[in-house]
């Protein structure tokens, strides 16, 4: 079956623009995570959903960042009024179980460049 799919693969935004990043998890996966990865660094946790419920958004860097998963499948990460420091790869991951200790399946990410 298909893996985790993210779109767009690359996004260039002018500073101040809003962007929306999409994640299609593996069908039937309960848990969905968003991570931010700066160049040469490990992924940093942003937010976590179990089905449609956003259980943890402690990693979102500011109130310009917003994530949703309204029907418990596809998720969108929205960044308003983008800043240069938002430039990074945004990774989505899903797992079959609601257990946070389960292995994660990652998409290939969206590389966001803010100019």
């Amino acid at each position, binding site marked *: 079956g298909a893996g*985790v799919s993210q779109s767009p693969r690359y996004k260039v935004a002018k500073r101040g623009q809003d962007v929306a990043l999409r994640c299609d998890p593996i069908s039937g996966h309960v848990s969905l*995570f968003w*991570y931010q990865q700066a160049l040469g*660094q*490990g*992924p*940093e*946790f942003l937010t*976590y959903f179990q089905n449609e419920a956003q*259980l*943890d958004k402690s*990693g979102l860097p500011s109130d310009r960042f917003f994530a949703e998963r309204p029907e418990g499948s596809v998720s969108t990460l929205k960044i308003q009024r983008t800043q240069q420091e938002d430039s990074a790869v945004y*990774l989505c*991951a899903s797992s079959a179980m609601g257990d*946070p*200790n389960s*292995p*994660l*399946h*990652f*998409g*290939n*990410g969206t590389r966001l460049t803010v100019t």
Partner: protein
Amino acid sequence: SQQGEEDPQALSIQEGENATMNCSYKTSINNLQWYRQNSGRGLVHLILIRSNEREKHSGRLRVTLDTSKKSSSLLITASRAADTASYFCATVPAAGNKLTFGGGTRVLVKP
């Protein structure tokens, strides 16, 4: 903030040699996971070791865990050029709900 730290940050070896990288973490955990990331791609889960396990094998991978020292090691035996990637350890704190990654070890295997 990152829970784990990998050592070394970068490693360059010849094909056929073994590659060893280490991970240290800060808090009590339920399990520790290792992931691989090829350039421009997402992370791929390699192996999970539970807190009550000391060693685990999967193909050419060997993982150890020392909870008293809060450290783990990943050994790749008989490395291949295709093993060139970044390797990350990741943990969920015993009282937590999110997988937290270290900074990674970048491994280059020269043919």
